[in-house]
């Protein structure tokens, strides 16, 4: 699946998107997998309360299932307007 990062999440991880092979069942499982990979992921995901996630471009919760999802995006709370 495609995993996208925005704003300071993108900067901490060091790339805007990547293709990830995973069997993770939920967003939280995916986050745990990524954090286990490298320190920069652990740094980006250190405070899940400071993060938001979208599944196929719709806001979702961290316990949402990933089955069928093609695009996961992680980012800080929005500051538009």
């Amino acid at each position, binding site marked *: 699946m495609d995993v996208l990062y*925005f704003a300071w999440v*993108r900067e901490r991880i060091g790339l805007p998107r990547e293709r990830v092979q995973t069997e993770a069942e939920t967003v939280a499982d995916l986050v745990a997998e990524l954090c286990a990979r490298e320190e920069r992921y652990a740094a980006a995901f250190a405070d899940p309360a400071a993060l938001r996630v979208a599944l196929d471009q719709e806001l979702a919760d961290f316990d949402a299932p990933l089955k069928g999802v093609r695009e996961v995006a992680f980012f800080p709370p929005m*500051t*538009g*307007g």
Partner: protein
Amino acid sequence: MQVRVQAEPFDTGAETGAFVARQSGAGAVVTFTGIVRDLPGGGLSRMEIEHYPGMTERAIGEIVDQAAARWALSDALVIHRFGPLRPAEPIMMVATAAPHRADAFMAADFLMDYLKSRAPFWKKEIGPDGAEWVAAKDSDENALNRW
């Protein structure tokens, strides 16, 4: 209903004039324009707005649909810029048209609250002390409870 997400500057006056001119039957038009403010101590050299192409248009469209379902709107417009902006430049604008003023006011206020916290934009300020991501405010999240 019209949504535009663009890097190019827009002219608030021209957009407002065209929006008012294309109404028929509306008695009330409300516009909101968000403008790049300088840092509290001054010295903002620019603001950078990042967004999530694809999701942005979809999220704004859903917010506009919600507003149209809740109030008697005859028209609505949302323009939001991304990329680099200078101090005092318009960041975004919203316009609503309705037969009566209460609907136009409430819909514009609602659109702003939701665009602020639910449309995927992130602001970064580049000033004398370097670059800093603008933090979301609790007050903005709490504002959603009004609706």
